[in-house]
């Protein structure tokens, strides 16, 4: 029998995942690792971790890793990439990290067209701290700091980071994907590979926003959380490629 699928070598074999059942961080991390291997970029890879659940894989990935302060991943990545342009630098951030506390760093790095990649994992809630309201929490969705649900009068509306960054001239590639079904998982991997390739070609800022679930803090079992993505999250956060300058270049 031919072996057609194997575990990525970028995840250490003797370590155990710290993610909750149904959490999609493990899926995204696997896809990042596979993309690095397939592009032969593992030895150039630097992951800049955000703070929160997005940092839970730091001790079992096998490539270089640095933990940024909450929200500062894009600033840290700027420092690394500018001084080591040959490295493949990506941030790995959740929605609280990228879109709330790090909003200035995120938008400014994108606006400067920094030549690194953002993997933005958006599940609409603060995971590690226990389910607080995030900038991307859906209207009506309950959070521990919004017990009656997100109320636009008090909390405003969900922030759409792909759309916001798409207003800037500098970003090269912006795509929103999900991991709620096998087809979308494959699309996410392809988007990550595309972003990494563009970076190595020196094209500039790239971001893949991945819509994921948080069964624990959504109060749903993992399968129902998949339904929630399809029925609630994706209508708010439509999937697709918002910007791909290579198409404009022909």
């Amino acid at each position, binding site marked *: 029998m031919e072996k057609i699928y194997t575990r990525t070598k*970028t995840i250490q074999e003797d370590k155990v995942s710290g993610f909750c059942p149904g959490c999609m961080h493990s899926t995204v991390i696997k896809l990042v690792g596979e993309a690095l291997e397939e592009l032969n970029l593992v030895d150039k890879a*630097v992951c800049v971790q955000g703070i929160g659940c997005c940092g839970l894989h730091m001790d079992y990935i096998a490539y270089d890793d640095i933990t940024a302060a909450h929200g*500062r991943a894009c600033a840290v990545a700027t*420092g*690394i990439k500018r001084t*080591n342009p040959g490295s493949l630098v990506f941030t790995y951030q959740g929605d609280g990290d990228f879109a709330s506390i790090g909003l200035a760093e995120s938008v400014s790095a994108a606006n400067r067209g920094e030549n690194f990649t953002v993997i933005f994992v958006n599940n609409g809630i603060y995971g590690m701290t226990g389910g607080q309201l995030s900038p991307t929490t859906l209207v009506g969705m309950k959070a521990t700091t919004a017990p009656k649900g997100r109320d636009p009068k008090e909390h405003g509306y969900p922030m759409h980071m792909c759309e916001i960054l798409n207003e800037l001239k500098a970003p090269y590639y912006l795509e929103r994907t999900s991991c709620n079904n096998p087809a979308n998982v494959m699309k996410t991997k392809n988007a990550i590979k595309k972003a990494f390739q563009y970076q190595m070609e020196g094209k500039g800022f790239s971001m893949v926003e991945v819509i994921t679930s948080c069964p624990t803090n959504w109060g749903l079992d993992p399968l129902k959380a998949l339904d929630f993505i399809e029925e609630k999250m994706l209508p708010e956060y439509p999937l697709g490629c918002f910007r791909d300058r290579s198409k404009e270049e022909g």
Partner: protein
Amino acid sequence: MSRVFMKGTEAVAEAAVRAGCRFFAGYPITPQNEVPEYLSRRLPEVGGVFVQGESEVASVNMVYGAAAAGTRSMTSSSSPGIALKSEGVSYCASARIPMVYCNFARGGPGVGSIQPAQQDYLQATKASGNGGFRMPVLAPATVQEAVDMTYRAFDWADRDRTPVLILADGVIGTMMEPVVLPEMKSDEEVAAIKESKKKWACIGHPLDYAHRSWIEPGQWSTQKMQKCNEDAAALYRSWEKEAEAEEYQTEDAEIILTAYGISGRIAKSAVNLLRAEGIKAGLIRPKTVYPFPNYAYDKLDYGKVKAILDVEMSIPALFVEDVDMAVKGRCPIETCLCSGGNIMSRDAVIAAAKKIMEG
């Protein structure tokens, strides 16, 4: 090496370049804007990188990234901006990332005043961020010293993998003085410094679980976190022997003026004039305010010294707390203070010293 006439901020920036600094990120704030302005044109000339950050917070975190990737890196600011940098400095201290930053201090608290002050002493020496770390804090009294200390700071930072702070003030930053610049490190030397950090620098490594770069500004394991802090504490203790002070006319002194930075320079001038009037005055001016040069106060002959006069551009007095711990009650300590961006008056220092000697 020839002497040049330079402004403090620009001289510090040039000293950093000569020390091999190849990355600077900063944000405008008075009175240190010439540092980013100078480096924005100077760093590209030597293959370095300048980034104007979107904030002080972003800037210091860019430095954390560049330094963690092996490049000698620096940021600078002034008091309110230095407060914002505390986040990144704490991360560098925890992850043992070498970096250098400068505070051209101004009045405070809050937005304070844009004129020179020494109101940041406790922040600089006791708590430059969360988590109870220490770092070398060097306090220049002349532009020449600011240059020499900046040059040395990069070596100290690399040797011990620690942040190093240059605690200057608005006078040192905006004053022009003749200065001898240190030797420019060659491209080969700068490359060799970066190469020496390759093992731990976060730049990408061949797939190998044991030898990847993993920059950790914290630990999941409480045991590991305690061990990190024990190792750091041992490092801090090792710095005690590197404490330095200028001791001027202290041997027969009956009154000791003590001050750091620009106040120390003014106090030295006061000592000369007091001596001319027959008053046996001396000066202790710490050049490292952390580690603090307790030895200089231990060497005093407390049979002769009637009092110590603490001179600082801060109200309330802050530096006096370290002086108090060094003197250990062996003689009274008086203060001569100003604040709000006012520069210490030599006449006020002389009057305060005379009052003690006459009293």
